[in-house]
């Protein structure tokens, strides 16, 4: 991933922790209560833990797998009390999230950074693509980079106007067309303009689309091919924006967007609510797709790099 976050992210981790702490008070505190109440590990305790994982949208399959691993340890008498059990659960989820390469924020790409660096932002309707782009642009601008936004959502009413507001807020440039125009043409114009002005980054907004609509998915492919013709290797990142309230359908979304759009990472949005976003555990386990950023609110600053430890901690500590 492009080095969007150069500085140490300590304060940002706190932000995630803060915003997810509301989340914590719901499920995780539940888990906390569950284990602190008793010392012994009873079958009832396991059932309640199972339900807590399910309630976090981790899904029946992944929950079953995690609990199976825990049960095996139990049978080998490796876990003596409820605290051990909690630690084991935590490490099992961390293990799942860590088996995919972590997103390199701020370290990689230093040697041969493509210019402009092209990021596509995709996802189903209403997950927060445009807001996420605004936040990404803000981070990049804070880092002193020049940003071009491509208003590729020519379908939804006033999507272009919405992105234009973000461009003005963040000091990014926006390339747009009429509503109803060809999104691939917008990509062409934006990349052409970015090359001419030697911009650092181009972020392409796309219309929300259900992953089951093959014609709309084909449109994404056309946008990608257009990008590659102007900037070889583009798009360099394709981010799938997913709403933390998403249930098991998230797996289907990730699978389809990976297959047809070549998604490279997930941005998990709206984690400031009570939803836990546990579906990303299932997605990482089944598809090996990493989470790269987390959205925690509506302000420009509310986007932080994903940190597995923090994510799991906010669920269980």
């Amino acid at each position, binding site marked *: 991933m492009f080095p969007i976050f150069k500085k140490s992210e300590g304060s940002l981790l706190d932000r995630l922790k803060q915003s997810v702490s*509301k989340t914590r008070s*719901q499920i995780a505190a539940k888990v906390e209560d569950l284990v602190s109440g008793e010392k012994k590990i009873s079958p009832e305790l396991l059932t309640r833990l199972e*339900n807590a994982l*399910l*309630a*976090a*949208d981790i*899904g*029946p*399959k992944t929950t079953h797998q995690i609990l199976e691993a825990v049960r095996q340890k139990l049978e080998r008498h490796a876990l003596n009390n409820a605290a051990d059990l909690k630690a084991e659960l935590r490490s099992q989820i961390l293990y799942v999230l860590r088996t995919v390469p972590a997103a390199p924020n701020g370290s990689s790409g230093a040697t041969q950074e493509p210019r402009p660096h092209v990021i596509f932002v995709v996802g*189903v*309707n*209403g*997950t*927060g693509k445009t807001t996420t782009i605004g936040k990404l642009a803000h981070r990049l601008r804070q880092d002193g980079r020049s940003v071009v936004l491509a208003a590729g959502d020519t*379908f*939804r*009413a*006033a*999507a272009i*106007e*919405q992105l*234009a*507001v*973000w461009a003005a807020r963040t000091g990014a440039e926006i390339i747009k067309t009429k*509503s109803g125009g060809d999104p691939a043409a917008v990509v062409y114009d934006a990349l052409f303009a970015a090359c001419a002005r030697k911009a650092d980054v181009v972020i392409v907004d796309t219309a929300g689309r*259900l*992953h*089951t609509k*093959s*014609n709309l998915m084909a449109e994404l492919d056309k946008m990608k091919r257009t990008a590659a013709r102007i900037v070889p290797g583009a798009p360099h990142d394709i981010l799938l924006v997913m*709403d*933390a*309230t*998403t*249930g*098991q*359908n*998230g797996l*289907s*979304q990730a699978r389809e967007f990976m297959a047809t759009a070549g998604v490279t990472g997930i941005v998990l949005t*709206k984690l*400031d*609510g*009570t*939803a*836990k976003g546990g*579906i990303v555990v299932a997605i990482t386990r089944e598809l090996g797709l990493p989470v790269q950023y987390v959205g925690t609110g*509506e302000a420009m600053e509310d986007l932080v790099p994903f940190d597995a430890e923090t994510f799991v901690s906010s669920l269980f500590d």
Partner: protein
Amino acid sequence: MFENLTDKLQRVFKNLRGQGKLTQEHVDGALAGIREALLEGDVNVGVADELLAHIREKALGSEVLLQLSPDQQIIKIVRDELALLLGKHAKPLFASRPPSVWLIVGLQGSGKTTTTGKLAKWLAAHGHRPLVVSTDVYRPAAREQLIQVAKAIGVVCWPGAGTDKPLEIARGAIREAKLSAHDVILVDTAGRLHIDDTLMEELSTLKRELTPAEILFVADAMIGQDAVRSAGEFHRRLGLTGVVLTKLDGDARGGAALSIGKVTGAPVKFVGTGEKYDALDAFYPDRIVSRVLGMGDVLSLIERAEHTVDAKQAAELERKLRRSEFTLEDFRDQLRQIRKMGPMEQVLGMLPKIGPLANIPKDVQVDESRLQRIEAIINSMTTSERNDHGLIDGKRRKRIARGSGTSVQEVNQVLKQYLQMRQMMKQYGSLAAKGRLKGLGKLTGAS
């Protein structure tokens, strides 16, 4: 929409088939499968467990004595329980004295503004004069979005210029509605988190001041376990009168409908099924339950077919069928009518996955462009050719292929399909004469 849940339950029931009576083992086996299916379908874990407890009790209780096969018994019990949860089909509410205010609320990104547009279109189609207004003063370009939506569907939008106070904007709209005789005002609101105290309070104020006839909670069909919390909190604060379930045209199983029904008791009144503004259907709980259980949403499909198929045309077609006069012209009409019903995937998705239709793959991809090519081929024929396919010889085929930008092979294929269909129609015609296959026949005959 509910395909996967349907598949799972069907698999569970297949295992039960051929057993004599329900034993505890059978029931527990089936329930474990049903639980997983419900969870995979995003039914809240608490709701699912409660549901299963009821089902288990009933399955093991007195009803075991009923002379039904085990799968019939469980299907019946599960169906009854799900139906109980979703409640009865509910009609939209209007104030006794117009104008009626409908307040549209929900989380960010659930589809409130699009739904507002769809509802306005639905109301206009049902003899109302809706006025839409956006009170979303927070999200960039949100109000502009509703203005554009209203323009696209041809309804009036109150722009609320000159103020950024939601209540003032809404009051302005009500004044305007009274002046220009609008009978329903759709008040679109900003997306908000149910734990955002300030914004939830704003909604309470809107409710208090506007006394809406409907407070509709717009929920994304893809929402997971958290649905019970968000919907529950909106309900606690506002007293929801109905739910609109959006994005059901995807492959989400929509178990959230059950969760939301459980925690709010508010009925689902509409479902959103596509990007176009007329893609809004009435919600019939019994049909959805039938669909979950593998009986398909045939009724809903028939309703749609009836809406699309011109009654006169249908009568004319029936006359022709009896006399075996089904021409290429009629063939083209049929194609057009099918295409009017919406994307083929959606139409096929509503059919039951049983009987003769059991073998249609669930993710069948229908190439819409092929339908277009067929139509182009028929368009390239002369009227006399269309009325008498026997005229079309090799030379004419070549001309038709050139005219439609296709190949002779494709023309041949279309003619073959037409003849096959004619044959089918003949059979259907004799059935129809006997009074069977009402409504659905139009469809199976044409597909």
